[in-house]
């Protein structure tokens, strides 16, 4: 099974893929409305907001967690070298 290169989510159903396209390596949550993959900054901001919303953490602490999540994913590796 494919996992999203930008967030690690397993992609099982066609609706999990960006633009319902099983050829894509990233998921529906990591794509922009036009189907392109979000940028590093966009993804980091979205993840940070998500952590704040679900766990209530301070925004800068949440930002660090978001970076640590992204560090392990193929789409963002190059931003950490």
């Amino acid at each position, binding site marked *: 099974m494919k996992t999203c290169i930008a967030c690690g989510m*397993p992609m099982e159903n066609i609706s999990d893929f960006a633009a319902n396209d099983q050829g894509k390596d990233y998921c529906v949550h990591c794509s922009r409305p036009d189907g392109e993959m979000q940028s590093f900054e966009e993804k980091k901001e979205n993840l940070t907001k*998500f952590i*704040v919303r679900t*766990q*209530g953490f301070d925004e800068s602490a949440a930002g660090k967690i978001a970076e640590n*999540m992204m560090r392990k994913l193929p789409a963002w590796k190059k931003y950490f070298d």
Partner: protein
Amino acid sequence: MRVSTRQTQKSNTRKKIIETAYRIFSEKGFSVPTSIIAKEAGVSHGSIFVHFPTLNDLLICLLSDFGDNMGASLHMLAKKCYSVENLLKEHLNVLEEYEAFYSRLILEKNRLPDEAKSTFVIIQSTVAFHFSSVIDREIEKGTVKKLPIHILFNTWLGLVHYYLLNKEFFSDSNGSVIRRYRAELLSTYLNLIKKESEVYE
């Protein structure tokens, strides 16, 4: 493909180190020296470093096993149209399975190496992700009170952690605290967050 005896031996040693470290860390905490782990596992101290060059590497390996199990269990539920009750039950199932290890983690988290600490926070974020997707749906349906997601999540985690961290008072033996209190914790929490017409029996 034929696996050489040497390779089999190597992976057996690795497995022994992992199982022993998991047991010793759970019983005595993460500051137990690796020399003790080696002795208990019946392997040479040097071979620990072959498999795990640093304590952090060993911790990450143990944490990943716990995290993969938690992630996979909650993800399986996500595929069905599950309720908050089912999600919390599954959360407790996995915690019960790893209870001694998890209790050590929450007790000693601040003393862990940075990467191990960060791995643990990422695991909790995965739990929060599944929790929020269920709770969002239930709030929308009107079955759960419209309260901030993070407070709902932190209240649940805080409750469970309180019992785990005070095991000595909540349990008189080596029995599982989660097994003993799970029904009470679940029904009370659900009664707190559910809309009145949906009271959980």
